[in-house]
């Protein structure tokens, strides 16, 4: 199935709940709200026509300093039917909470931890919700666009690079 067929199929099963993204990006992904995610995730994995048994990637996105949303992109792939799909969930920066799919695709465990580590998005229901790449006591979420680099860490001075990276 290609992208359009998958969207239609989901809409048939979910009562026309989701509409394809119509933003200016000519993007092929489905934008949903966090509350529907868990149910959809089970459907995507277990439905006989979709069988997205493989989670390729989870990417956290910060839409910019002005934008009030953070996004998470889930890239799915089916090893059975050889089709792909992308789901994107936007959450407000004030309350970044997304249900965890760590029990559905086991790899989501580490990917979600990484997104939390870098963007501070909390994944509800994650059994091991910790930082993964950064030290446990790191402050702030470095991949956010408004992240301010720390001067020191545990007394170690971070060398300042004067010139612009270009």
């Amino acid at each position, binding site marked *: 199935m290609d992208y359009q067929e998958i969207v239609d199929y989901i809409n048939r099963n979910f009562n026309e709940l989701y509409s394809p993204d119509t933003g*200016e*990006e*000519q*993007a092929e992904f489905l934008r949903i709200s966090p509350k529907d995610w868990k149910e959809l995730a089970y459907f995507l*994995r277990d439905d006989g026509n979709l069988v997205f*048994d*493989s*989670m*390729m*990637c989870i*990417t*956290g*996105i*910060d839409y910019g300093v002005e934008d009030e949303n953070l996004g998470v*992109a889930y*890239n799915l792939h089916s*090893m059975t039917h*050889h089709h*792909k799909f*992308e789901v994107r969930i936007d959450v407000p920066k004030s309350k970044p909470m997304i249900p965890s799919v760590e029990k559905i*695709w*086991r*790899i989501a*465990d*580490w990917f979600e931890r990484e997104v939390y580590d*870098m963007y501070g998005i909390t994944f509800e229901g994650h059994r091991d919700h910790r930082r*993964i*790449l*950064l*030290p446990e006591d790191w402050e702030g979420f*470095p*991949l956010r666009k408004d992240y301010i680099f720390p001067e020191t860490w545990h007394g170690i001075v971070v060398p300042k690079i004067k010139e612009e*990276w*270009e």
Partner: protein
Amino acid sequence: MGIETLTLDRSAIQGEEMVLNIGPQHPSTHGVLRLQVVTDGEIVTKITPYIGYLHRCFEKHCENVTYEQVIPFVDRCDYIASMNNNFGYAVAMEELMGIEVSEKVHYIRVIVAELNRIASHLLAIGTFGLDVGAFTPFLYCFRDRERILDLFELLCGARLLYNYIWVGGVSHDFPIGFVEKVYEFLDYFEPKIQEYNDLLTFNKIFIERTADVGVLPADVAISYGVSGPNLRGSGVKWDLRKNEPYSIYNKFDFDIPIGTGAMGTVGGCWDRYYVRIRELEESVKITRQALDQIPREGDVHAALPKKIRPPKGHVYSRTETPRGDLGFYIISDGKPKPFRLKLRSPAFTALSCINEIARGWMIADVIAILGSLDIVLGEIDR
């Protein structure tokens, strides 16, 4: 998806549980990985990997440099297979920008990528042998890997971090006589595979140590996003070069070796190891075909502006590196710097399943299982 929980037979007398750190300074963690294991005697009951010792903020860096300048950073992610990483990034960028590169560039990329795959697998095989205590195969592998590095040095001046495959082409054409040298290497290398088999693969002790150990069933592997030789070792015939051909891989005739459980259960360490050995042969096959067909004439650069400005949009593209699916999620906002660049690392996903498959085994087995997963910490920590 069947994720079974481990049950322990606690009828045997229990000692105190000991918390043991394997790494970051340990001979066989393949970098600076720390595994905190809970052991009961020699048996490991729980493994908690701690990563990030090599974290270099790759993704944050990428947001601050232009698209061309990302390539050296990509090199430094998987420093064992830099060519393949460059290749993956170039493929992703070309998909994002919708450009087509010339025939010759495709051939050059395939040849260097396959050579680097051989080099990377040689390292994996050698260090795996080292992990189970065989020292000699390691040096044999390095001897042959050295020849590939010499070829790359001739090609682009660097031995480890090549910065060779660029967006829209490669940095420069093959030097004179390079094709003949590669032929020469392949003729030299092909009989050597038998040497590894004699020395290590079919050694009785080696089989005892690795077959049946650390079994990774196919469904668990897919659920954990394990890819590449590790997934194929579990008996899943899945290779992006064949299933989702990128570049010109559909022009070549090659097989996808999978784990068959010849020496034990499908998906054991031995299967993962043997898939790599078999892939050496396949890579030699592909390289030979590419060398036979490569067009002599042609430009190796696409007509690109000095500063690449991809159109607004996003792409998720993945390619097959020696370690598995290397994915790039790139979002462009039309400026010369990436808005967001995420690298989906195959070794990251492979390592995440270590607690699942390695508990219940002994310390020696945990080391062997870790070796068989062939992780590169530079790529895990990015």
